[in-house]
Structures are given as C-alpha cells and as structure tokens.
C-alpha cells in the first residue's frame, strides 16, 4: 500500500463514520416518528367520540351510542385484585431470594425459573388460568379468575424489580442494624425495606401498566366481549356493607372491548375503538410517568 492509497483509505473510513452517524440518527428518529404517527393516527380517529356519555354508557349495537362503562369498571376490578394478590407475594419472594436464600440448587432453580416465567407468552398464562382457576378450582369465568391469572403473569416482574431495589441498599445499613442487636427480620422490615420501597413501587407500577393492556389471557379465561351489566359493587347500603359476591361475576375489560370493536365490520365501531385506545393509552402512559417520577425523585433524595 503506498502513501496515496493509505490517505484514501483513511478518508473512506472517516466518511463511513460520518455516514453511520447520519444513518444512526435518522433510524432513531424514524423509530420515534413511528411512535408519534401511531399516537396521532389514533387521536385523530377517536377524538370525536370522546365525551362523558362514552364513559357512562354500556356497549351498544349502534356505534354512536356505545360506551365503555362495563369495560373501565371491569378494568378497575381486575387491576385492584391483581395488585392485591401480586404485590405482597412478589415482594415476599423478592425478599427471600435477595436477603435469605442460601447459595444452593433450590435457589438456583427458582432463579432460572423466574427468568423463564418472565418470558412465557401471556397467552400461556391464559391457558393456565383456564385450566387451573376456571375449571379445576371452579372459580368460573369471573373477575377473581381474571385477577388471579394476571397476578401470576406480573409476579416475575415484581420479584425481579424487588430484588433489584433491595440490592441497591448498601450492606453497611444491614451491618449497622445487626451491630445494635436487631434480628434479621427486624433489619429487613425496619431498615432495608423502607429504603427499597420507592424502587419496589416503581417496578410494581410498571408491571401494572403492562397488566392493564393484557388482552389475550383474559380472553382465554372467558371474559365476555359484550357485557351490559356491572359486577356487584363491593360497598353496599345494607349490612354488612362490604359484599364480595361481585368477585364471581362475569366481566369485560377495556382492551377486550377495544378488540371487539376492531373486529367488527362497521366503520363506526373503529371510532369507538380508537376512543377506547386513547383512554387506555392515557392510563398506561400516566402510570409510566408516575413510575419515572418516583424513580428520579428518590434517586436524588437518598444519598448513602
């Protein structure tokens, strides 16, 4: 290679480098542009249908009169049950694996298992819910079957984020607690867990924001696509005021209602679907924003 070739080669490499800078920037911009297009397209389609009636009406055969009352009430039920079941179980499992578990084969097996469960397609959880809760345990195609199924689905995510939050608490905190005579559980309960709580909450909210959009597993366990009544409300005017028979009522949720409208041939229902999506995306993005806010706020506040 003579001097001239070497100089040319160097120039070529430099321009390739520049070229990739432009390529990388435009591809990243393209990906962001697609996200923007998606949101704009949906807002444009559905904005006209968004009004108070849309929130207070049951689904209907006429697109102009259809609403998402049964859908958002169902979503509220499912989300409440899912978090009530999954949060304590997930946090407890996370504490065990991070603070208590000995280095042995059972621990190793549990860890591989959780990593694998996090990657199992959600529709498989639907089959589990159908076989286990609906059929085997005779809980029926009910709110409680749906909540339990989604709880199993997000459990791995909560466990993983709990472990990550616990790992971020410095070891010196634990040593200080032990030094003044605290037992292991006292240390975890009063020192480690409170410091890790913001991280755990962030992970849990993110997991819930995923659960709120889940459609397939709830279709599997038989959530109905057309439903014109609500589960019995938990608070009633008669004694004993708290009634849980609503747990065993059939239900629908927002994403299933959207799916139902998208699958219909009439154009009017597409607008209903888009309006439903605006609300679903709104809730999901809000949850993500809260999670990010929690993370940045407490990252700044706590300095070890």
């Amino acid at each position, binding site marked *: 290679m003579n001097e001239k070739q070497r100089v040319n080669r160097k120039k070529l*490499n*430099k321009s390739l*480098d520049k070229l*990739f*800078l432009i*390529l*990388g920037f435009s*591809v*990243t911009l393209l*990906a*962001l542009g*697609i*996200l923007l297009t*998606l949101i704009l*397209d*949906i807002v444009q389609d559905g904005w006209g249908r968004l009004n108070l009636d849309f929130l207070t009406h049951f689904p209907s055969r006429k697109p102009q009169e259809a609403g998402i009352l049964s859908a958002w009430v169902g979503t509220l039920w499912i989300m409440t049950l899912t978090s009530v079941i999954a949060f*304590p179980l997930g946090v407890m*499992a996370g504490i*065990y694996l991070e603070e*208590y*578990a000995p280095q042995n084969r059972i621990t190793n097996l549990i860890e*591989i*298992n959780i*990593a*694998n*469960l996090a990657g*199992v*397609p959600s*529709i*498989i959880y*639907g*089959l*589990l819910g159908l*076989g286990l809760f609906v*059929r*085997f345990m005779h809980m029926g195609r009910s709110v409680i079957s749906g909540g339990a199924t989604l709880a*199993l689905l997000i459990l791995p995510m909560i*466990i993983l984020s709990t472990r990550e939050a616990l790992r971020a608490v410095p070891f010196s905190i634990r040593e200080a607690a032990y030094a003044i005579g605290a*037992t*292991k*559980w006292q240390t975890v309960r009063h020192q480690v867990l409170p410091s890790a709580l913001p991280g755990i909450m962030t992970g849990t909210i993110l997991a819930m*924001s*995923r659960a709120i*959009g*889940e*459609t*397939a597993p709830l*279709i*599997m366990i*038989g959530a109905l696509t057309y439903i014109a009544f609500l589960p019995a409300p938990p608070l009633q005017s008669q004694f004993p005021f708290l009634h849980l028979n609503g747990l065993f009522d059939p239900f629908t949720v927002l*994403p299933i209602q*959207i*799916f139902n409208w*998208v*699958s219909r041939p009439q154009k009017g229902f*597409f607008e209903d679907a888009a309006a439903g*999506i605006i609300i*679903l995306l709104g809730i*999901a993005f809000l949850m993500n924003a809260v999670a*990010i806010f929690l993370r940045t706020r407490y990252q700044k506040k706590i300095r070890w």
Partner: protein
Amino acid sequence: MILLRSRSLVREKCVEGALFLSALLSIFTTLGIISILIFETYEFFKKVSIFDFLTDRQWTPMFVDKHFGILSLFAGTFLTTLIAMVVAIPIGLICAVFLSEYASNRMRTYVKPILEILAAVPTVVYGYFALLFVTPLLQKLIPDLAGFNALSPGIVMGIMIIPIISSLSEDAMHAVPMSLREGAYALGATRLQVALRVVLPAALSGITASLILGISRAIGETMIVAVAAGQQPRLTLNPLVPIETVTAYIVQVSLGDTPAGTIEYQTIFATGMSLFGVTFLLNILSYKLKKKFREAYE
C-alpha cells in the same frame, strides 16, 4: 430473657418460612402450566396421532373433515416472526450502536425511555394500527395485498420489538470496558471501526440474548396477529394472503363457546404446549447467554 429470645427466634423462623413459600410459588406456577398443558395434550393425542399432528398439511379442527396439521399454524407464526425480525434487527441494532457509541449521555437518557414506550403500548393497540393504518398504506404500494395478511402485522410486531433489541443490546455494549475502546482509538480507528470491530464482538453474547428474546416475544405475540392477520391456517410463505398463527388460533377458539372435553377445546392446549416448548427453549438459551456475558465483564 431466654423466653423472649426463643419467642423471637420462633417468629424469625415463621417469617423465613412464609418468605420461602412465596418464592416457591413461582415453581408451582411453572409446574401448574406444564401439568395442565400435559394433561389436556395427553387427552388430545388419544384422539389424534402425533404423526398426523406433525406432518398433516392442513389444520381444520372446526370442519366436518377434521385435519390436525400444526405445520399450517406454525407456518403463520414463522412467517410473521420472520417479517418482524427483518424489521426489528437492523433498526434495533443501528439504534443500539448509535445510542451507545455516538449519542451524547444527555441524548441517551432522553431517547432510551421514549423508545421503550414502543414496548409498553398494549398489543391490541398495535393490532388496530396494523389493520387500520399500515395495511391500507401498504395496499397503496402493493395492490395485491389482502385486507388480512402476514406482512402488515409482521412489520408492526417488528416495531414493537425494536426497543427490546435496542435497549438490551445497548446495555450490553455499554458494559464493554472503556479500555478496549481506548486501545482501538489509540491505533487510529474511527468510531465506526471501534463499534463494529471491538464493541460488537465483545458484546456479542449479550446482543444475541436480546435477539433471541425478541424472537421469543414475536412467536408468543397474540393480539396483533389476531386482529390483522386473518383466520385462515395456510401452509405458505406468501406474506400477502390471510394466514393464522398458533396464538391467533387459540384466541379464535376461546372467543367461541367450546365446552371442556371436546376435541376443539383440547386443540388449544396441544397447540399451546408446542408454543410453550419453543419459547421455553429460546428463553433458557437467552438466559444462559446473558449469564455468560455477565461473567465475562463483571
């Protein structure tokens, strides 16, 4: 004093036991999935031979003339997954290299979470987008494209998977020690040369793990294909015609009223079993690769 200590010791043991049981729940979940799938699949194979299941070229469990050839469903899954990866791998990797090697710290901290929103959008929303935005758009370019097809949901699925690949690959590249890059720069390499010849090979197992995870997500993805790909099981690689994937079939059966114990009911568990098997192998492979990468650099 001794009484007090022994009482708190009992409490410690109880707490530890309860925590251990919640951790064990994940094992029971897996066992539950496997035993339910095996139980119903066993019932299914009492009526249909495994040989037919694996070799028959038609899937028509709802017809009078019943055929149970899973290949037609897996052809749909394979086709949409292939299209998704053709979209997601180049875009995801270019984004990852750009964010890790070219972008400023500030840009990375803003762009990465925004990209990750793409993975947080509910999949039924992507189904809407594929059916009512992407398909009509593609039909202007390809007049032969059917209203339901593999191409449009495949592309949209690829868009959904971009952040899985870009974020996880970027994490892997970011973890490559700075000293390796500095060595190459000292020899006069450009950023592109450093990225392609030093960072990419060093982060390869982490990047491969992200690709496998992306493939596994594509295979298990349900709502996009259920909305936009059609319901016609077909042994084809033509992306322009309606097809049906394994997951979309399971949804189709669940939407109808199929009583437990019937052959239609059992088909969803048999197909689900195949799906679980494939994604299980991919997930384990991805886990091992990721672990190997962590051992190398931490």
